């Protein structure tokens, strides 16, 4: 199978998020970005599938800060090809990003497209499903298992309470990966550096992306702490004492 994995950079939530002067977006100046954690799972599942059943894995990303590094890291993990989509950059809607990916992927002969099921900035919808509709192929989201079965794939989709559904699907198809079978592999920096020297980073044009989310942000704000927690002060020892009393009072 020829597997394509679109990768997206998102703000790292470990950092403190600040709102910019417009009041409508994050202050992106000092933000730290990282690859969407579910995209890491998508790449891992693609690599595992290739290891079991053969095929090729292509990681593809829209142009942007640090994206070369993310693509070389994908190559270091085992992606056969890495592709950067140019002519689109910055903070675009998922509708635009999906259209750019659809344009770029067209002609790559994809059997499977694995996206992360969601990211922390999907205001106008999850990327994978948008991409599938622009590519005019079916999709399954919240996928926790994929196995190749001749020309088709067996896919498990997760619901609430641990219930899962099993589907059989023809290719090409877009799958929104929730979790790979294994924890996404780690790759040491030295290996990424080596990949940087030995990997050919292809560039493809985003083409016509004249689509839009159809809505605009009017305000961004930190959620009001709904009543909020009573914060316990003092040393860890003091806090532990207070917590012990609270817990004993409840049980």
């Amino acid at each position, binding site marked *: 199978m020829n597997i394509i994995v679109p990768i997206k950079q998102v*703000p790292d*939530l470990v950092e*403190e*998020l600040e709102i910019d002067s417009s009041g409508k977006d*994050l202050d992106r100046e000092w933000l730290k970005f990282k690859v969407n954690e579910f995209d890491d*799972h998508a790449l891992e599942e693609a690599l595992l599938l290739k290891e079991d059943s053969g095929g090729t894995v292509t990681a593809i990303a829209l142009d942007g800060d640090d994206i070369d590094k993310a693509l070389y890291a994908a190559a270091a993990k085992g992606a056969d090809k890495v592709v950067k989509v140019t002519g689109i950059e910055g903070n675009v809607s998922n509708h635009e990003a999906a259209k750019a990916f659809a344009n770029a992927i067209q002609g790559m002969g994809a059997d499977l497209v694995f996206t992360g099921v969601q990211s*922390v*900035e*999907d*205001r*106008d919808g*999850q990327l994978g*499903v*948008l991409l599938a*509709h622009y590519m005019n*192929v*079916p*999709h*399954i*989201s*919240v996928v926790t298992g994929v196995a190749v079965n001749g020309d088709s794939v067996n896919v498990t*989709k*997760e*619901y*609430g309470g*641990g*219930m*899962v*559904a*099993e*589907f059989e*699907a023809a290719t090409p198809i877009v799958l*929104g990966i929730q*979790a790979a079978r294994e*924890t996404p592999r780690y790759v040491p920096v030295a290996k990424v550096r080596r990949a940087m020297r030995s990997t050919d980073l292809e560039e493809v044009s985003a083409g016509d992306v004249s689509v839009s989310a*159809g*809505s*605009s*942000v*009017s305000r*961004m*704000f*930190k*959620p009001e*702490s*709904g009543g*909020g*927690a009573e*914060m*316990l002060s003092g040393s*860890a*020892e003091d*806090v532990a*004492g207070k*917590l*012990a009393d609270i*817990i*004993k009072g*409840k*049980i």
Partner: protein
Amino acid sequence: MSKIFVIAEHLNGEVEDITYEMLGKAKSLGGDVIAVLLGSGAKDMASDFAADKVLYVDSPELANFNPEAYCKTIVSLVGSHTPNIVLVGNTSQGMDIAAGLSIDCNMPLIAYASDVSEGSVTSQLYGGKMSVESAVEGDFIASVLAGSFPVDAGKGSGAAVEEVAAPDLSGLKIKFKQLIEPEGGDVDITATDVLVSVGRGIQNEDNMEVVQVLADKLGAALSCSRPIVDSKWLPKTRQVGKSGLKVKPKVYIAVGISGAPEHIEGMKDADCIIAINTDANAPIFDYADYGTTEDLFDVVPALTEKL
């Protein structure tokens, strides 16, 4: 008056609560509330919907959720009925409907919605760390986070059901095979009074001991956020949240859990929530009764000692 579509959701023969949440919200918006139900022999599921009308589509292909068949059917209904607002769950099923509808019916979609009004939708983004208000002109789709609205407001005495013929569903590329129920676990986390719940703040499997001894001391069960299950440090049956279990213990102690909307969905109804998290801005504190930003590796052993 606006026409509001509510896409009903069901799983394994049961209507999911998100359906009633959205019906109640739709009613409060003051529109003409039309519930959309897809299934096979499932018409009776609508008998307690608080709606003005139910559109019901029956086909063997719709008996169980199938992303392709459901998308096609709902796209065709939206095309023929032109609702002003479409409410769909930001759920596992809804995710496979909303974005496709946005493109195929050329309607804006606003996802992760925790509130909806005419012309404006509030979303919870960045793992619940930011609320984002979107302005939208004209018709739109909102995918609604479960737990945003009361369930009871969407229950009523049903409504006139109009059966609509299914579109051509031959040649589907996705075939539903079966539903697989979760295996029972060693511990039922929905049935214990106290839960010690651990998240990614615990860092590695060796550290799990730290929370396990606290749970043992309290006679509590150990539950967790999703990444702990994905790392295989605890079985799936211990997962709290959207794709895990809903719990309502007397005391829920969240240790190193950020409070992403998918986690909150599963535990916000606990009587008393205690959060231990070094990030003062972690959304978990918005739902907790008591909180501390002390390091879990200091507080948890000290607490175990004091009990």
